[in-house]
């Protein structure tokens, strides 16, 4: 398998009166179709690493290669285009736009990309919602859904532009155990059936069991890597 996302010697520090090191010298390769879990104690730099991998934040040192392309030196707009076309996000809180219906939320990234016409966008949104088992909720607003349903819609939105890698920040952190298991299963299925790579930050030990690989991060450094 080839690496779709490669992190090489990433470091990220925050300036200010008391400089804080968020991530220190992390190197990590994510293979296509791999389910990787990032674990670690609170404040260890898990989320910071995920933001770097997801091109939301820019490392102070090191570089990130997305599908073999070096992204260092990219401007804000180029990074945004990479995120739009190649990456998808799921957060602890669903972050769906409250004034838009489920269907419209899923269509947002497609409409921004502008590759599909309105009818195709709609068809794809339904296909994704169908796949995630929430097609019957398409016309509802996010506040009318349960937590698990919202998170599945968020996954559908993350998949809208057919990304290479799905990045999830505590995707089950706010869910009951049944919904957690469901979302975990969905993410796992994505890697198996659709060949997506998934990188998930989690506290949930159940996740570690489902993942192909689990990396631990302590004080911004990789502790060890275990292949499941």
């Amino acid at each position: 398998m080839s690496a779709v996302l490669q992190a090489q010697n990433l470091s990220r520090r925050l300036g200010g009166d008391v400089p804080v090191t968020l991530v220190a010298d992390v190197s990590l390769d994510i293979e296509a179709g791999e389910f990787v879990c990032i674990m670690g104690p609170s404040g260890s730099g898990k989320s910071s690493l995920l933001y770097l991998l997801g091109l939301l934040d820019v490392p102070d040192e090191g570089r990130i290669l997305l599908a073999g392309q070096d992204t260092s030196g990219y401007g804000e707009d180029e990074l945004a285009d990479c995120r739009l076309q190649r990456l998808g996000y799921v957060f602890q809180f669903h972050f769906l736009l409250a004034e838009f219906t489920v269907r419209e939320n899923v269509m947002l990234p497609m409409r921004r990309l502008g590759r599909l016409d309105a009818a195709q966008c709609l068809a794809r949104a339904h296909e994704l919602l169908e796949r995630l088992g929430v097609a019957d909720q398409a016309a509802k607003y996010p506040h009318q859904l349960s937590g698990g349903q919202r998170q599945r819609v968020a996954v559908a939105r993350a998949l809208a532009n057919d990304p290479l890698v799905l990045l999830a920040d505590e995707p089950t952190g706010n869910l009951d155990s049944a919904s957690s298991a469901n979302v975990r299963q969905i993410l796992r299925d994505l890697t198996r059936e659709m060949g997506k790579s998934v990188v998930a930050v989690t506290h949930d030990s159940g996740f570690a069991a489902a993942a192909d690989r689990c990396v631990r991060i302590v004080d911004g450094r990789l502790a060890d890597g275990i292949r499941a």
Partner: protein
Amino acid sequence: MRISLSIALTHLTSRVRPTLVSLGGVVLGVAFFLAVSSLMRGSEKDFLRRLIDNNPHITVYDEFRNPAVQPAQLRWPQGAVAVLHVKPHAEPRGIRGYRQKLDYIESLPGVRVAPVLTDSAVLLFAGHQQGVSLSGIVPAKMKTVTTLQEKMVEGSLDALSADPNGVVLGTGLAQKFNLRLGSTISVVTASGTSHALRVVGLFRTGNAAYDEGQVFVLLKRAQALLERPNRINRFVIQLEEATAARSVAAQIEAAGGYKAVSWVEASEDILSLLLVRNIIMYSVVSAILVVASFGIYNVLSTIVMEKTRDIAILKSMGFHARDVRSIFLLEGLIIGIVGSVVGLAAGACLMAALGQVALRPPGVTEVVHLPIWWGPEQFLLAAAFALLSCLMAAYLPARRASRVHPVDILRGAA
């Protein structure tokens, strides 16, 4: 762009009350801008119309702007010796060869002209006497350059052209001399000629000095009375386009040599006064829209603050900073467009209502309506200014939104 527009619309429609309040500010601002500015411009136009209509656009006098150059000066312009105290050549007063000059002026496009011979005379009637300004006119031509015909309250200018001994005078004079149509009065001129004239028409302009001091007779009659045959001393000119008066006057003066004074030149002080008045008026009505734009700024700032997480999520999704900026600029623009359209309609209603107001100024018998100017410029100006102030109000919130850094927000929310 379409996605930005639909997000902008959703933001506005999901918050009906604040949107309506800020929209109301723009609507009122545009409506008042429109109503007040059209009233002010209307009164300006009305004033200018009175000024322009009651006075000739251009008057050509039988004088020269500069004194004639002496022959010695013409022959030796660089001469070392100057001849002083030379008495100018005396010539009969009046415009020389007026028929050719009349033909020339008539040949200019958009120009109507009437020849006039004016001098002072004394009216005698039943022991009363009154000094007046006697004008000899050609009624058919005079009708085209003045509103005299419309001001006639009895008789007409046509009656004057039919009666070589006719006279048309103001109601003030008629009252003073107790004259009616058909009455006969005597007129004596400076040359000592006296003649009996019959009243064939009465006019009333509302200007007391004019109504009591101006009489009209036929040009031929005036030339005979003043003993200046074939002379006139004034061309009264009216233009299709009053604003061209200055250039046409210069053209006529260059061709004929006689001093041609446009209304612009004659009333420069009033025009500069009107300009100052317009500047003050536009500053005041613009202030209404500026105040309204604070309302928009307030609403959009609140939306940006409330939607910071949405903005972060849109940016993490791959929206560019300019996409986010355009969402909020569009919100300002939408409020501006809707506010302008509704405001223009409301302003037009207000203008129509103001136009119905009938006033009777103290001491005046005629009822006057508020002068409303329905010029399209006012509508365009009001809409353009509203859009501009809405965009400016939206700019700061839009810039703040575009600078939201997703990581900062996500870190805070997690």
